[in-house]
């Protein structure tokens, strides 16, 4: 379903993604793990047409996301690392806008919105503005929205960041269920190794832009002779702490928080 060959992305002299190759099969849940700044998000951005690769090839369901942009976009859904909802719109309107943008026919759209919002336990609050939602509810809404146009692939970039264990647990239950019922291929990144161990069929570990290990959680643990995935991860990527500098988006977010008095 996803096929990546010799993918490279460099920003000036810095190589964020360095000669990465992997395959994800249909209906598979693939977890992409790595420390901060390892190249996870850059890879997802390239897979989802937001960034042009410097070199290498990508195929999503047999399509090159660079040349067949719109065709490829119809085939995947994405939940970004940062929220991407419109806080002034209601939950239902956020779903509706998404459905229209993805050309989901009117009747089907209505049905699917209701189905998904009920599944993610948001239907009762469909008429409320999203800015009044808790972090967990927003995430659920984003994931429900990602499924709306029945994508073949769902990208989840750190979907459980900042959620309490209850919400995380519930979220993965839903994702797993939809993976089974709708045969959606799931490509996810996370910092919680226990999640990856529990949810993913296969795992890829990336560090400094290079793919350092690939295989089932069990195989990776055996390969590194460790008991838990967390130990395996630390063994593979070392224990030095990576500090990312705050990008302009982070700075703006801070500014906005001041501006709006923390309302959003």
């Amino acid at each position, binding site marked *: 379903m996803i096929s990546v060959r010799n993918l490279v992305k460099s920003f000036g002299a810095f190589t964020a993604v360095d000669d990465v190759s992997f395959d994800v099969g249909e209906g598979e849940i693939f977890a992409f793990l790595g420390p901060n700044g390892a190249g996870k998000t850059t890879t997802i*951005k390239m897979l*989802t*047409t*937001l*960034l042009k690769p410097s070199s290498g090839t990508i195929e999503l369901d047999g399509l090159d996301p660079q040349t067949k*942009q*719109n*065709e490829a*976009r*119809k085939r995947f859904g*994405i939940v*970004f690392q*940062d*929220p*991407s*909802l*419109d*806080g*002034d*719109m209601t939950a239902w*309107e956020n779903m*509706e*806008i*998404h459905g*229209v*943008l*993805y*050309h989901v026919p009117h009747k089907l759209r209505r049905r699917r919105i209701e189905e998904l919002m009920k599944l993610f336990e948001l239907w009762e609050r469909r008429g409320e*503005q999203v800015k009044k939602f808790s972090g967990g509810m927003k995430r659920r809404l984003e994931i429900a929205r990602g499924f709306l146009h029945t994508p073949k692939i769902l990208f989840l970039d750190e979907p459980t960041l900042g959620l309490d264990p209850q919400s995380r647990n519930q979220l993965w239950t839903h994702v797993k269920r939809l993976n089974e019922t709708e045969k959606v291929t799931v490509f996810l990144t996370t910092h919680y190794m226990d999640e990856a161990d529990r949810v993913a069929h296969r795992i890829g570990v990336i560090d400094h832009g290079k793919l350092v290990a690939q295989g089932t959680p069990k195989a990776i643990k055996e390969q590194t002779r460790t008991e838990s995935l967390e130990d395996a991860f630390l063994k593979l990527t070392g224990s030095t702490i990576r500090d990312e500098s705050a990008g*302009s*988006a982070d*700075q*703006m*977010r801070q*500014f*906005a928080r001041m*501006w709006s008095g923390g309302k*959003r």
Partner: protein
Amino acid sequence: MSAIYVLWLRELKRYLRSRVQLVASLGQPMLYLLVLGFGMGPVFQRAGNGSYLQFVAPGVIGMTVLFSSIFSGLGLLWDRQFGFLKETLVAPVPRLQIMIGRTLGGATVAVMQGLLVSIVCILVGFRPAHIALVPLALVFMILIATVFSALGVAIGSSLQDMQGFQLIMNFLVMPIFFLSGALFPLAGLPKALALATRIDPLSYGIDGMRSVLLGQAFYGAPTDLVVLIVLALVLLVFGAYRFSKIEV
């Protein structure tokens, strides 16, 4: 087409929902209209130019449309920040449609805001000279709104964060307003100032409104119309180009 419609509708809903913003954005035009309108009145009258309130009302309407449309274009920055922009950018919709939906939405909101201020102008005593020509004033409002929404989107696409916002405000939006002849007549200005007003797009919009509302024209309504239409098309293309270059 449905993508354009749904994004247009979104802008409209956002506008109608933020009542505080709606009221707040009327504050500045009110100051200009009431304080300047009545404060400068006696001087203007003595100089033999008639009622200043009559003169300044089209200027204040134009100003409202300018601010409102340029801010809605810069609203792109908010969407970039709160992430909604990404949601639209990965959708299987050509970017041109997204840009047009936003721009038309912003322009519609600006025209509504302009109409609101027009009503206030009439309430405080503004009287158009020819009632029959009033719909033409709406045409000018729409053109001003389109020109500056497109400009706003073009700028919003190029800025990364809010720091640039003050810069745009002080070095672009305020000069466009002050040089537009919204507050003073364009005739008999010093050369440098006259030149500056000539290259200010808003001066054609306000001249157009004055000419249809009061029968006082400097460039003349046909010139105003042509300049604004050409400029609107150029800026729409430019805005669409800048928008297509956004990377998140």
